[in-house]
């Protein structure tokens, strides 16, 4: 089969050949590539900015897609973001605000590093990219690394809440509720409308279910009739509904069928307490007047010209007006007794005795100090820096699972919150969410933000 003399060789070139075909193919490919690149780059420069973009902007920014200079000049600056996101330059979105809202320490806030918005919020990642979502890895720079190393809640660490001005035993109440075969916790704690939490308790809605048998909270203890102003001696309209009270042989009287916040009891208590310590009464009055002035001025000040403020206007107005109303009433009561003469030490004791006698049914729950009732402070927010929703939790586990000490709680001040370890027992890697954003927000939600 092999035809040629030299093995494998076809022929010997009679002179040297410089091979060109490889070059021709390569040069062709190179030329094609350069042409392609040229066309692309011309197209790119023709529509320069959008093609330079590493990706479409997130949906809220979609209108800025073709105007790079709305954000870039040429670099992205925080000021550009704030033009829309913080138009009144409150600084709410700064790192300083973040530090302040949590630490409440102006010095720490002043020390806080300046962070650009783009440090955490990167755009150009597609229309549906959630720019607002934070990433735990960004929190780690300053805070602990994982939820597993979350510190104990401050409240739990403290052990007791501050005084609430009420005497209340969950233990006793639970016993009574169960005895009546009523729905344990939910008998009193009604879920709020958004189901995230519970409506604040008040006497009229909750306590009155048991503590207003026959429509009254009870009767006063027998009180020296001369120490108090009896209903028949009071000209105010609210006194007219009460029938005349008679004295017994010892000159004591019992006023029966007291209502909650009974006007007669309050009138006499204020009058007696003012007589015991006129200075305190004056101070109280002055305080109330200051508060009234403040509330009135807030009602008068114009709303912020934002949609949000406009939406909230009616509710805000109502809240302010009802607060002004209650302050006025209290001032009126004080004014009514302001002419009371001061008394000696003996008289003081008699008056204090009288106060405790007339407030006997009130003192079952309320606390009196020096004749004055301590204000009832209903804790508005249990978790100062976090958000918590009861709904998903109560749907899955019993209340007592977390609030385990409630059965034994005898004081209103008891903290019946679970320790963070209990949260961590369910919120672990691979099970329930453990990211910071589940409970915390980086930017403080409060508006207006107090400028630092």
């Amino acid at each position: 089969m092999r035809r040629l003399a030299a093995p494998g060789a076809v022929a010997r070139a009679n002179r040297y050949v410089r091979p060109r075909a490889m070059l021709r193919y390569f040069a062709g490919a190179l030329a094609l590539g350069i042409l392609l690149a040229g066309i692309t780059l011309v197209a790119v420069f023709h529509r320069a900015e959008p093609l330079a973009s590493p990706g479409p902007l997130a949906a809220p920014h979609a209108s800025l897609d073709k105007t790079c200079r709305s954000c870039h000049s040429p670099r992205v600056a925080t000021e550009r973001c704030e033009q829309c996101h913080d138009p009144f330059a409150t600084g709410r979105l700064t790192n300083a605000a973040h530090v302040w809202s949590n630490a409440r320490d102006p010095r720490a806030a002043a020390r806080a590093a300046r962070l650009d918005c783009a440090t955490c919020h990167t755009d150009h990642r597609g229309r549906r990219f959630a720019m607002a979502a934070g990433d735990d890895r960004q929190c780690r720079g300053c805070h602990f690394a994982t939820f597993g190393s979350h510190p104990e809640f401050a409240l739990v660490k403290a052990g007791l809440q501050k005084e609430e001005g009420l005497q209340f035993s969950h233990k006793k109440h639970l016993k009574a509720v169960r005895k009546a075969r009523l729905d344990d916790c939910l008998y009193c704690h009604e879920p709020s409308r958004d189901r995230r939490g519970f409506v604040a308790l008040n006497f009229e809605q909750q306590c009155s279910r048991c503590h207003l048998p026959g429509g009254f909270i009870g009767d006063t203890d027998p009180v020296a009739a001369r120490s108090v102003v009896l209903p028949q001696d009071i000209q105010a309209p609210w006194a007219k509904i009460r029938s005349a009270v008679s004295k017994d042989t010892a000159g004591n009287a019992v006023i029966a069928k007291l209502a909650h916040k009974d006007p007669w009891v309050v009138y006499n208590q204020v009058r007696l307490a003012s007589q015991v310590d006129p200075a305190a009464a004056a101070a109280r009055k002055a305080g109330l007047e200051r508060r009234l002035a403040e509330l009135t001025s807030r009602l008068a000040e114009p709303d912020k010209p934002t949609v949000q403020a406009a939406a909230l206007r009616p509710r805000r107005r109502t809240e302010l007006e009802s607060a002004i109303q209650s302050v006025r009433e209290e001032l009126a009561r004080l004014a009514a007794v302001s002419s009371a003469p001061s008394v000696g030490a003996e008289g003081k004791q008699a008056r204090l005795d009288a106060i405790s006698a007339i407030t006997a049914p009130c003192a079952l729950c309320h606390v009196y100090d020096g004749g004055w009732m301590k204000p009832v402070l209903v804790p508005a927010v249990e978790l100062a820096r976090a958000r918590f929703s009861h709904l998903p939790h109560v749907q899955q586990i019993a209340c007592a699972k977390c609030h385990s000490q409630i059965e034994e709680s005898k004081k209103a001040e008891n903290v019946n919150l679970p320790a963070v370890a209990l949260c961590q027992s369910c919120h672990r890697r691979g099970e329930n969410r453990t990211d910071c954003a589940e409970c915390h927000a980086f930017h403080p939600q409060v508006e207006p933000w107090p400028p630092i």
Partner: protein
Amino acid sequence: MTSGSTAPADAGFFSRAFPHALERPEQTLSLAELAAVPPFAGLAETVLKKIQPYVLPARYLAGETILREGEFSDAAYYVLDGVVEVVLKNLPTHQQTPLQATRSNSRVRSLSERAAELGATAPRQRAIGKPATTSGTIILSDILHEVKLGERVLLEAGEIFGEISALSRYPVSATVQAAAETRCLLVRTPALRILQRSAPKFKEFVDQRYRERALATHMRNVSLFAGCDEQFIARLKERVELVSFEPGALIVEEGSPADSFFLVREGFVKVSARSGAADLALTYLRKGDYFGEAAILLEEPWPFSFTAIESVELVKLPRAAFQEMVAKYPELKRELWTAATDRLETRGRATRHPVESEYLQMAIDTGLIHGESVLMIDLNTCTGCDDCVRACAETHDGVPRFIREGFKFQNWLVPASCYQCTDPVCMIGCPTGAISRPIGTTEVSIDPVSCIGCGNCGRRCPWGNIVSVPFSHPVLKKDIALATKCDLCLGRDRPACVQMCPHGSAIRVSFKDVAAVERLLPALG
């Protein structure tokens, strides 16, 4: 093979200027004239007829250079009348210190670069190659070794010079000039070889001169004798026999009684062993190698066959002399034993892996054994991108010095590119000395400026690896076909073909190192 087709540009001019450059039957002497010359006296007429075309008369004026040191000659010169002087300008190689020049700072300039220098009176600077030590080619002195550096020796009528260089193709070791008007007889290599074989007297005469002038140097260059003292070598010199073999002749047959030790003076000797019916090539020996030590040491018959690949000249040392030497220098024994066991090991390996033997046989058959730097391309990895050829062209003014065609053995392509032979026959008969191999280097290069395009070298190359390529000559102002060949990219770190092969397929193989070749080629394939 059309490489040598270019005819000499001007034959008449050459014949006048370069007396021994061309075959010139019309100037030969008559048989009677020949017979009258003393060395040829008494020769048979048949022998005289055979040598007649190769013996030429020549005249030199006083001061004319006959042989130039470092050049190659294919003729011995017999002085008919007149006086010549021998001048040694450089030391013989074995006394030289290695040249300090490196490849990168010396290069052969291209035709265009050299054009400007044409006509300058400064003597042509020889490109200086790699130091002699790395080449290892043994270069013998063919002039009386008593000549001292810079000293002049006069040779008168009846003397003969240049015969060793002509027979062994070593560079001429000294410059010979005519001291007065001189008539010489050029006895060209074919004639010398014929005389060696058929004229015992002439052979004796030449051998005697070889013994006197070169043998000692030759022996000293063989590592085996390096430690022997002067007197011993002188004594040994008297006992050796100088023998020649024709191509293909069996020197020693495996199994015959071992009676001598051989030293290769010239040519290649194939070493083979019988394995069943096959004759496996084990290795080949070249000038400077020796053989016979195993048989003598073991006191056994020859374990190998030795065959002459070409015309082979050997120095034969009788068994008794060899044993005397071993007895006197017992430290030689170790080296001899090592050599002997190496060769026996090779035998064992070749029997087990006949493929290595195949490669050797191929190298012997194709003449690759002459190559000191043969370009070989591994076809298993060569993509045919021709980057090697392009790189070659870029190094050589746009004209490549080879194309990727040649002969194929197993997976190896051996392109038709210069092998850089140990004995470059192409150099013989270059009328201008354009083709040269600087002493002690590997590359044989052609100076484009001195080349006149006669095509002698191309015709002499047995493998057609020298090609004439038309150039537009800057001085002659016309197209002239100049000889071109691979010069190993003189002036570059390494040959461009090897450097620019992206796949590592192109390699350079020196067939001087037989062991390396045996390992390299089958292993890579």
